[in-house]
């Protein structure tokens, strides 16, 4: 279990304990004396992706609190237990082992494609339901009987984006720049294939090192190829740097990215250079669902800011609602709490009506279908551009 990093471990434990503590202390008195219904969360609380991970944990925590405030599941409160993955596969495996072996949770929410893939064998071995919430790799649908997703996979939003770029924006040549990791490789490939199948031409297809800070050489290759549009399949740290250097080299093409680009920090870092930037979102915005407006207000009131990666936080907020539905189904069918029965419950219920992301249908092939929302940066803010069913 040890990762040979005691300081980090201590910090993760502290954070996880604090999160769990906050979730349980907010329970109403009526539910406190009943056994708690556990649910696990394995997300990055530290590491380069903590910016997103901590906000996602907070959202899930709010979801659990809101359910408990209304009486929990048949009077039983939910208890959320959090472990840090650092968005690192090995640390993710450690987190899963702890949640399953020590905390005895029947279900775990997990994200980041590489972590989901690394932890899938653990979930299968220990017959514990792993719900991937945010990982976009299409491989997630093929990771075994105990791994399901509640989040549409990369081929959904990137496919919709590539179609929008070709059909609606009328672009015929494009470039794809992708970070050399799992999500970058997958998303970049999907954009290239869909755009090409539609009749478009990918004139530059370049991967960059995750630790790179100078993208000049790669961008100059793209500049020579002169695409009409540039798609970046990167992460929160590198995407703004790529765009900044692109603009400084005089490249004014419109830029697209996927949901990782939907980050208010990016607009601050790029200023006017972010104008026209298109991102995808797999969750409804405030105009589509009044609960989302209230959710954003809650962030501003309690945290003084909008959440990082709003759509991801919406999906995580809904996670306890999915779990509570399955707990209710188990109680109704007099089935004991186990990972096996949790999986059975998910497959049997199949359709969930969720407060933040709307209707969820879990397909037998371990995928889900959702509308794709496109947003663009206009006057220094993300605004809706189109909704693709």
């Amino acid at each position, binding site marked *: 279990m040890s990762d040979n*990093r005691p*300081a*980090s471990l201590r*910090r993760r434990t502290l954070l996880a304990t604090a999160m769990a503590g906050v979730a349980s202390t907010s329970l109403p008195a009526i539910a406190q004396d009943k056994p708690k219904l556990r649910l696990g969360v394995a997300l990055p609380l*530290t*590491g*380069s992706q*903590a*910016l997103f991970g901590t906000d996602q944990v907070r959202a899930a925590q709010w979801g659990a609190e809101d359910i408990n405030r209304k009486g929990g599941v048949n009077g039983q409160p939910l208890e959320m237990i959090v472990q840090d993955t650092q968005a690192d596969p090995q640390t993710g495996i450690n987190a899963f082992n702890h949640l399953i072996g020590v905390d005895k949770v029947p279900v775990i929410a997990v994200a980041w494609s590489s972590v989901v893939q690394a932890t899938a064998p653990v979930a299968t071995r220990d017959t514990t339901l792993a719900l991937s919430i945010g990982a976009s790799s299409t491989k997630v649908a093929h990771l075994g009987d105990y791994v399901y997703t509640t989040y549409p996979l990369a081929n959904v939003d990137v496919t919709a984006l590539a179609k929008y770029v070709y059909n609606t924006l009328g672009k015929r040549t494009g470039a794809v720049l992708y970070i*050399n990791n799992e999500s970058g490789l997958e998303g970049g490939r999907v954009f290239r294939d869909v755009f090409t199948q539609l009749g478009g031409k990918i004139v530059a297809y*370049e*991967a*960059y*090192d995750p*630790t*790179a*800070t*100078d*993208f*000049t*050489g*790669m961008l*100059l*290759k793209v500049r*020579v190829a002169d695409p009409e549009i540039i798609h970046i399949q990167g992460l*929160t*740290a*590198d995407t*703004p*740097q790529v765009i*900044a250097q692109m*603009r*400084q*080299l*005089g490249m004014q093409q419109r830029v697209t990215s996927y949901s990782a680009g939907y980050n208010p920090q990016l607009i*601050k*870092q*790029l*200023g006017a*250079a972010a104008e026209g930037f298109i991102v995808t979102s797999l969750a409804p915005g405030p105009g589509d669902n009044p609960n989302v407006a209230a959710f954003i207000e809650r962030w501003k009131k309690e945290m003084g800011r909008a959440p990082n990666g709003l759509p991801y936080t919406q999906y995580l907020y809904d996670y306890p609602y999915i779990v509570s539905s399955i707990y209710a189904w188990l109680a109704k069918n007099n089935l004991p709490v186990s990972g096996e029965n949790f999986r059975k419950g998910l497959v049997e219920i199949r359709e969930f009506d969720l407060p933040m992301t709307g209707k969820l249908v879990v397909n037998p092939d371990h995928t889900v279908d959702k509308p794709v929302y496109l947003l663009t940066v206009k006057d220094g803010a993300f605004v809706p551009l189109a909704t693709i069913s």
Partner: protein
Amino acid sequence: MMLPILAQIFWTGFANAAYYVLFTIAFALIVKVVQLWNFAQAGMMGIAFYTMYTVINFLEWPTWAAFLIGVAVTAAAGLLVEFYGLRTLRRRRSSNLMFFIFTLIFSELIAYVLMFLFGTEPVTLFPSILSPVRIIHGIAVTDWDLTAIAVTSASLIAVWLFLQFHHEGQFLLAVADNGRLAELYGISAQRAYLVAFAIAAVFSCEGMYLFGTRAAVLPTTPNDLMLFAVIGTLLGGMGRLFAAAAAAVVLALVQSYSVLVIASKWQGLVLYGFLFVVIVLFPRGFRLPGFRARRAIPAPTPAQAKV
């Protein structure tokens, strides 16, 4: 068509080399004077960046104040390392391996402390990472490029002048040549070590300022940046400060130009390839064909000196 591309890669690679040169000079100076492979420099660089980040973003003080405080805090940390770490190891007559382990552990410790204090989100010194740009003869030149080159050039000239003409600088060279002999002449080696750490702090701060205004920094970022400094020092040859700086520029340019022949994702490989080749083929540094170092004049013995 190809010439503007080559020129742009040269310019941007050259400008980006600025912070690598600063880190390399800081590293090579300690190697030269203190005779120590100071991997604790990564910790110093982390301290420098996050001190400036705190002063700019939390205290909202002006940039010049942030830089001065950054230098002061980094230098203080360097002096603490020298006083309480390295001197203790010297007193114990510890092996080179122990010095190496100490500096490495110090950097890791600092990285974890910084993670604890500042979290692990990537941050930049200022909210915007965009720099005004102008096109000169078809080449995009940013204000950042000009600042980086100017700061680095001025720093190199300053350190050269210091070493050549200031008595403290000459003491550094004397200690670097032969510490025991220098002490016989009344030069304090300990003082020279402290001065070397202070200069390294200034260079580390300048480098992290330039890096942090262009790219996002994590507490572990300095560890990655150190690789350049190590290879530059090896390639330039032990004790040859300005050759190490030149090597850092060459490395940065080779890495930038490598994108023309290999995929961008393999650019990192170039550095490790260099490190391997240098260690195997040029353990005493690379010298241009026909270039011969000035023969060092044998230092006088104490008896000769007295005469």
